[in-house]
């Protein structure tokens, strides 16, 4: 009986202290950590069309189309299929593709979520945070320069 009463007391304590854990979203937007991985943003000025992101992507989310002179034509990214592993950003030598903190996006159909170059460029920063700033201290860490027989691809 004492255990039951203790349980009742614990719940009543929570009811009376009036604190809530949930927030009134979207009026109260959640704090997203600087490292959070959301939708991609793409910069054509930076991109050198090396196709490393396309290669590393674990589930073929990124599709790059080039003409026969190896000039980039299309950069398509299916954000509905993306697993937000951030490998594309890690391998990108020029920071041309970064994952913003923006997680608020919708699409009525799956096709709406297949972003092309222009759509990717227009992805807004979340609360104006440029993720590169916060990630900069650690950016050197993602790949070591191996000794001896190292394949630099």
């Amino acid at each position: 009986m004492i255990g039951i009463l203790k349980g009742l007391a614990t719940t009543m304590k929570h009811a009376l202290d009036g604190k809530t854990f949930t927030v009134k979203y979207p009026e109260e937007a959640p704090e997203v950590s600087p490292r959070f991985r959301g939708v991609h943003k793409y910069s054509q000025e930076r991109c050198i069309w090396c196709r490393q992101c396309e290669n590393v992507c674990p589930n073929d989310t990124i599709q790059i189309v080039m003409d026969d002179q190896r000039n980039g034509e299309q950069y398509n990214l299916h954000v509905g299929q993306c697993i937000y592993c951030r490998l594309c950003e890690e391998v990108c030598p020029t920071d041309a593709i970064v994952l913003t903190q923006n997680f608020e996006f919708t699409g009525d159909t799956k096709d709406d979520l297949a972003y092309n170059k222009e759509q990717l460029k227009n992805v807004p920063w979340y609360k104006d945070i440029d993720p590169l700033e916060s990630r900069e201290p650690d950016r050197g860490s993602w790949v070591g320069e191996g000794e001896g027989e190292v394949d630099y691809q």
Partner: protein
Amino acid sequence: MIVPGAMSLTDRFLELLGLDPSTAGPLLVFGVSILAAGLVGSFVLLNTAFAGPYAKRKITASFTDRISVNRIGPAGIGTIVVDSVRLLSKELIIPEDADRPAYDLAPIVLAGSALLAFAVIPMGSGIQLADPEIGLAYVFAIASIASLGLLMAGYASNNKYSFLGGLRAVAQNIAYEIPLVLTGASVVIFAGTLQLGNVTTPDTIVGAQQATLFTIGSISIPSWFGFINPFAFALFMAANLAEVGRNPFDIPEAPTEIVAGYQTEYSSVYFVLFYLGEFIHIFLGGAIIATLFLGGPAGPVLPGIVWFTIKIWGVFLLTQWARSAVPRVRIDQLIQIGWKGMLVLSLANLLLTAVIVGVIA
């Protein structure tokens, strides 16, 4: 001994219309009675409507540190309307092999039985449809028809979960109906009558509770049966939890075990009726507890109807509290508690009360 019942709501209405209740024509009395019944029913449904889609969520949310409904209207109160429209406009899906008349009747039986029982409950401020001599017996008899509705629903749905739920509901209701009635009987022994009566009729259950038990300084404690016999009160509260099927006794529904029990196959309007029926039952439980143990609608300063509402909401709050903090017992444990524990305790309580009342008398 025949006690003249308190003035019924119908009579009051007739008086308001300037007619003499004793001479009014039967058709007129009937019409006015319907009006009065509508008023009482509306009052109950109003409480239920507030409790079901709104208060219940808010109460549970406050226990779990959440905000809960807050979008429509101030503090989300408009959810009641929105939810009603949503539930009523959903598609009514009836299983192919459902046992039709029984399947359709079950929700009505459940909701109806609880509503009917309110006919004799004194709600204060003169709101009481009738005050028969056998008031308490009527309440218990009518309220327990609900388990028939649950069995019908469970059987007629042609679903194994519903079937299990229906059987559980009946097993549970029988096991707890008896302690409930026996504990209620101890109150009857105190009061010496089955008539629920009113604050103004001293020889009835409610009336008998209006005397002063003792006074501390200037505060006089009324002789509510809950104060006279707190043991019976606790017993009745526990049995009532089982009767309305709330934790720790929400076994007939037990969502994590048998999906939703007897109401698994009900949707749309039928589901609303079930939902309403359950809440009316909780409020009926509260009303019975208020009437038997908490002095009915009596209370200082505020009018009776307000006190009555406060009391039934207190009981409702308790059921929700138990729901968030007390685990569910297993069906065999439930039956054991019912037959081996509650029944024995309530019999002991009855005998003890009888002896004490006999000695005093």
